[in-house]
């Protein structure tokens, strides 16, 4: 592999990848402003600390330097020595501590993903609920090179400082007749507080670079975006053949997707999608996928 081949390989990798929707500019500006305010506060603390130390030193040594010393300064001990400052308010913070710009992960996590605890359990529980939604004749379970995957990840803090989380499940779907064909069923739930305001087809269009025709389906008065794609449109991702998106009034956003094949699996694809379009849309509005 030479330099040109590396260049081609990297470009090919990027073209084939499915980038998530563009990042939110407003959030980036807000994060910058927050870091700026934090730095200003830190600097003010350092200045205040130095001022306190300066005053204390001046109060101790200046009178004697000027030839005085006959009187004891207020706050000084019986021998004219200023006692050490007990309050931590004026102590300069550790260098660099105030300049930390990384996200503050919740609940003691070291990064975005929760790998254990109640948050992680929710995506596992979500997998069970998703499997239960399949019609008879289909089952959701591991199949050789196709594995059930779950993930719980922190997204951001909402305006009221509540936590916004994202729960994902992607599961192989097999026909129970033993034909060995494997498809995909997927659900992603972003909890209330997300800054995205897109609904129905607007939300579906944001998902994973999947391009195709989208229709708004009414499910008991709820508007669901139902996006169908055969992956033939230029630049379209082939992750899902069909995707339903529904936004609750509280901002909770549910994506449910399905595909005849399972990405990365060598096993044959299903001959048909596990769910009809209407079933998929109804699943997106199912209350059991409304998580917090």
């Amino acid at each position, binding site marked *: 592999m030479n*330099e040109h081949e590396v260049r081609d390989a990297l470009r*090919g990798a990027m073209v084939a990848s499915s980038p998530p929707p563009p990042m939110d500019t407003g959030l980036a500006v807000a*994060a*910058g402003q927050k*870091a700026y305010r934090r730095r200003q506060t830190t600097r003010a603390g350092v200045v205040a600390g130095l001022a306190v130390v300066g005053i204390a030193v001046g109060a101790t040594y200046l009178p004697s330097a000027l030839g005085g010393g006959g009187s004891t300064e207020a706050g000084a001990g019986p021998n004219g020595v200023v006692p050490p400052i007990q309050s931590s308010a004026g102590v300069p913070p550790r260098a660099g501590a105030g*300049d930390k710009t990384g*996200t503050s992960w919740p609940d003691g996590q070291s*990064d975005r993903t929760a790998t254990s605890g109640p948050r992680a359990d929710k995506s596992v529980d979500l997998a069970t609920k998703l499997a239960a939604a399949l019609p008879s004749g289909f089952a959701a379970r591991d199949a050789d090179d196709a594995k059930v995957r779950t993930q719980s990840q922190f997204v951001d803090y909402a305006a009221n400082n509540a936590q916004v989380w994202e729960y994902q499940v992607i599961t192989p779907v097999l026909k129970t007749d033993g034909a060995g064909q494997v498809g995909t069923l997927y659900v992603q739930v972003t909890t209330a507080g997300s800054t995205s305001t897109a609904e129905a087809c607007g939300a579906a269009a944001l998902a994973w670079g999947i391009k195709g025709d989208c229709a708004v389906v009414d499910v008991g008065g709820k508007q669901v975006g139902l996006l169908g794609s055969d992956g033939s449109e230029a630049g379209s991702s082939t992750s899902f053949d069909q995707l339903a998106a529904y936004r609750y009034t509280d901002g909770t956003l549910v994506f449910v997707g399905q595909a005849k094949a399972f990405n990365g699996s060598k096993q044959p694809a299903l001959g048909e999608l596990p769910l009809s379009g209407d079933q998929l849309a109804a699943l997106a509005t199912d209350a059991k996928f409304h998580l917090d």
Partner: protein
Amino acid sequence: MTDRDAAFAEYFAARSGAMRGTAFLLCGDWHRAEDLVQVTFTKLYLAWKRIARHEVIDSYTRQILVRTFVSDTRLGRYRRERFADGSPEPESPPVGSPEDRMVVLEALEHVPPRQRAVLVLRYWEDLSVEETARALKCTTGTVKSQAARGLQTLRGRLADEYQERVR
């Protein structure tokens, strides 16, 4: 919104996508790439007033990005995480599929962070040796040697099938 915020927002909207692509190649995960870009742009925001020569913002931003990546990797961040624990590594998927990217990205994963940064800057960002050296705060000789070692590691990691394909 102040003029500073408006200019910053405009720059973020224009360039965050490209920076995120670079970050993705560095850390191999879109979520971590977004975290890396967010941290990078936050640092950029703090330095925004100082950057008088705005024609160099791109190189400055890229410099923050790769240095943050290398630094954070030393601290144990940006390790690729896998969904399934304990499952065996699947065989390389067929070439020509979207999973090709996994072959390249997984091979990149085995390249040490600093060498990976050199490869991405040189062959994804198309930076010169000198520009790469400035971004990583090292000498041009170091860039050349790190690029050679990185390529050697990639060669060793890529499946024979894939190498045949790219030849």
